[in-house]
């Protein structure tokens, strides 16, 4: 039961994150959307681990931790680029609106 709940929540987060990543223009919002998307995937992975029975399957746990570290590094790089871009142009959007 909890595994199903985790799984559904994870799927919802993936959907919200994907939507934000595609639709939003502001780079920080996109970075946040990427993190939501990532959290959704990790939650799904947790649900997969939970299904293995009491105590869960430890392998997905290890992968989630690795995944979080990778997502953190990528977010840090993204924020650094956004800050640099904002300093150069005064905007935090890689694709300025047309015209």
């Amino acid at each position, binding site marked *: 039961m909890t595994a199903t709940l985790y799984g559904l929540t994870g799927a919802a987060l*993936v959907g919200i994150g*994907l939507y934000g*990543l595609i639709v939003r223009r502001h*780079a920080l919002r*996109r970075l946040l959307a*990427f993190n939501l*998307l*990532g959290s959704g*995937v990790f939650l*799904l*992975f947790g*649900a*997969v681990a939970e*299904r293995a029975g009491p105590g869960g399957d430890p*392998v*997905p746990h290890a*992968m989630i931790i*690795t*995944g979080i570290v*990778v997502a953190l*590094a*990528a977010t840090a*790089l*993204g924020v650094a*680029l*956004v800050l*640099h*871009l904002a300093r*150069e*142009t005064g905007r935090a959007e*890689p*694709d300025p609106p047309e015209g």
Partner: protein
Amino acid sequence: MPPVAAPEAGFPWIVLAILLPLAGMVAALPLGRHARALALLLIPAGLVVALLLAAQVWREGEVTYALGGWTPPLGIALRADGFSAVMVVTTAVVLLGVALFAQSSFRAPPGEETRAALLFWALLLGLWGALNAAFLGNDLFNLYVALELLTLAAVPMASLEARAETLAAALRYLFFALAGSVLYLLGAVLLYGAYGTLDITLLAERAGPEPVTWAAAALMTAGLLAKTALFPLHLWLPPAHAGAPAAASAVLSALVVKASFFLVLRLWFDALPGVMTAAAGQLLAALGAGAILFGSVLALHQVRMKLLVAYSTVAQLGYLFLMVPLAGGGGAAQPWDAGAWSGGVLHAVSHAFAKAAMFLAAGLFLRAAGHDRIAELRGMGAALPMVTLAFGLAGLSLLGLPPSGGFIAKWLLLTTAMASGQWWWALVMFAGGLLAAGYVFRALTPLLARTETPVLPGRPVPRHQQWAVLGLALCSVALGVAPLMPFALLQVGRPEAAEEGIG
């Protein structure tokens, strides 16, 4: 499960191929201005390791190594077949050429430490380690980490010159790459949930054609395509590759996009051969055809040389995906088995050499003239004959004219398309060849134009840089003269689906 080490295993060059560059990257950071010396020492050493690994694969067949002695599914395995060995050697050779080129442009003045010089060499080593990890991994999660490491090294590489437009291009590249890898990870989660393993060899035994596998394969393929910049997900590539310094563009365009292409093939042919359908293969090739036509036409329209070369990458990446539906066809028409497979891989390798040479050449024209507007480079050919020759030779390979690696690759793909009755892909290849002739000659014509007064380079171009460019271009041509050796190596551990086709 007790740790088991294979007693008959030879020296683990496969581990050294990943460890050497990554250890080098870590050591480069505290070394500061000596990072360049370290990289110039490690890259030739890495080429030797790559050649020894290839020799091992050649002699003993497929090499597998269980990390820490723990076998899958609990442990993580590394695996080198002929395809990975060829890619690892190609990477090392291209990096050697790029390092020889860059050793003077990314050099800190005596007694000082500059940000660009330190970052370039550390990133180059990190990128190399990530590439080798992607070519040698046999675990889908491990490959995810390699892909992310590649992104984290490639994006700063694209924005080494921190101008507004390169920062925007790098940020766009980062978003495409992050979305791609998270989709890939989502697919991997679904596969783990369904089959309890992410080891490619075990997955091939367990995975069957069912909805969860199709969903996972679609997610992972879409993610990898975003990273490979296959049409219509190519938008990030031209500004990111054209805005980087020449040495960085060469590595990004020649090697980085090939890693995610390599993983598409690993996924389709090695991990899930029984799952993919012929229709899916046709769809992938249709995207490739779109890339060839669209990328070539856009390349024809470019005013700046670096952008022209970048759009030509978009087009040439398309050819790689034609091999997916062609694999398995036309056996009798060719002297080798699995002609389309070999042709596709050979195209990846010869394009790597040719594109590295072209970007470096474009960088030298930019340096000599102070700009890279094609029309205003008139007469540069007389000022830089060696670089122009290299650009021409690399163009020869892109066009698929004999004798060049590109010729053999395209000939194999073409004959397979004809022999297997898929003539529509042959038409696309002919059209792509014509368009490529258009954009290569468009860049060459002003260079070779005769001018009243001889053109002098605004800034002197060092000899060793010219030799590096010519060397890479010659490698791409040499593949057409002596293709037999890489061919035989390629057949080691070739997936069955490469011979019999998918679906």
